[in-house]
């Protein structure tokens, strides 16, 4: 059986992992890259479909004419009595601040 060309090379994979902000061990990385390439093989079926120029993309299936849209909530400030419950969920919180380590500084080119 001829081996399929790997679409996601180790270099592309490392770039994706960096963008996704995921620390991976080697075993995980091997599995994930293998599965990514397998899934992309499955996706290649899409390329064989003839799509005429007038087929628009569908961001969702069911049409939303204006009369079907619910009234939106008023854009008004409502006091919350749960602020303490919500901030209590933070891994580190002090004096009204979410505490995080140093933010790295990068220079935009």
């Amino acid at each position, binding site marked *: 059986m001829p081996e399929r060309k790997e679409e996601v090379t180790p270099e592309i994979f490392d770039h994706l992992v960096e963008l996704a902000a995921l620390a991976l061990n080697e075993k995980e990385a091997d599995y994930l890259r293998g599965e990514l390439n397998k899934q992309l093989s499955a996706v290649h079926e899409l390329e064989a479909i003839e799509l005429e120029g007038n087929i628009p993309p569908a961001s969702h299936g069911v049409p939303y004419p204006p009369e079907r849209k619910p009234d939106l909530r008023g854009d008004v400030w409502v006091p919350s009595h*749960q602020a303490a419950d919500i901030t209590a*969920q933070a891994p580190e919180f002090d004096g009204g601040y979410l505490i995080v380590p140093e933010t790295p500084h990068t220079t935009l080119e």
Partner: protein
Amino acid sequence: MQLCDLSAVKLSRMLRAGEVSALEITESCLNRIGAVDGIPGRLDYVESEQDNTRVHAFITVTPDSAREQAREIDRKLAAGEDAGPLAGIPFSVKDVFCVENTPSTAASRILANFSSPYTAAPVQRMLDAGAVMVGKVNLDEFTFGSSNESSAFQPSPRNPWNTERVPGGSSGGSAASVAAGEALLSLGTDTAGSIRQPAAFCGVVGMKPTYGRVSRYGLIAFGSSLDCPGPVARSAADAALMMSTIAGEDSKDATTARVPVPDYSQSLDRDLRGMRIGLSPAFLQITYPDPDSGDYSQQPVPEEMQRAVMEAAAIYRALGAEIIEDVPMPNTKYGIPAYFVISRVEAASNLHRFDGVKYGYRTKNPVRDLKELYQRSRGDGFGLQPKLRILMGMYVSAAQYSEQYYQRALRVRTLIRRDYEEAFDPNGKFRLDALLTPTTPTTAFPVKDVFGDSVMMQYADQLTVTANHAGTPGISFPFGFDQAGLPIGVQLLGPDFSEDILLQLTHAYEQATVDAEWRKRRPALLEEV
């Protein structure tokens, strides 16, 4: 037969007649959980042989608040107050819905310590209607799977009909809890078949409503254009009771639709004469990839599945419906490839919010800076399936590949939607009220058989996923058992907002087969209790 084995409709009637109390019903479910569920899912699980014979549907059981709710229902009924249409009916909630002051984990380590400050809209509607929440049930991590094995909370749920088999997924805990009598109803979600497939595997009824029919407010999102909350129940009548409660527009979810909600219970007994039910060859074959070459081949669905569909069609014909054969649905085979792209892009976007800063898991390891905090928290907190979906979603939506993958998949979605529009067009060639198909290509598969192969696992959803692309409703209901004694599910698909018709057709089938020998079977596990 105990209280928890009766139907929600019957228990409602008994409760109102004063023949039983809400507390007795709740205790019956809690006793059943105690008898068959075994240990709840947990992060630090050590595998043990004895756990292989239990259901393990739950992550969190909430007996105290359940008893409190039940007592309040009994008080209201005694005082002659309105206790709500679902008064005293115990239900379980897939642990991907936020429930105030209750762990809401999405079956992920990254949310294991998260306690929600608010309650999801459909759960709130159930509670407001008097239903009693007995706990939160397990699922595939962030709903990413079709077997529940990817949950970070182990042991993962088992199929009550055979605990060596998976319950399906991702609403596996929902289906297992309802099948085992641990709850009368369950609130699940369906993004590619995640209500219908486990319902089929566990021999219960599961409905994916029309997109926009039920609010997603408070649902931890996976694929925002595909996710649909819906009911899991043991009969169409019970599902109808629940649908009437959870459906309807919600100002907190702008994708809900302003379409009147009928009383689904009232239309169950309508006459079937003149209704048009379609059969499509596209749903009687499966396309699957060769694990070695990646090449695709097609083969018919197993004969038992085909026979179930044909027998169901014969029953509908006998009830006066017209059966329309050879409805094309030619784009069905593209459902999974398009789903691989669209759902992953949406998943990656939704999962970016989990970063170890505002809530949820933060790495215990020392880190240099904020970037490493993100990487390690997400690296430790997410299991393999979320990681895979994030990476896939980022790849196929990247600027240089988006035209080839994401934009193309969205256009294929238009083609899939057109298949449905053509089949259900009231002035078209087929003019269907519903399409009848198998729910799944196979019955419940053995634990560990497919897990790890993300492509084959996804193909478990190929007969259900196109309804998610199209946004249209679908229902799976039990149709007897296969040779191995596992439940077979049959599916009905309908046009937008046709939940009443799908429930009616399911109910009609149930009534026509009420005396069938297979309906007397119970999971062996329940014979012990």
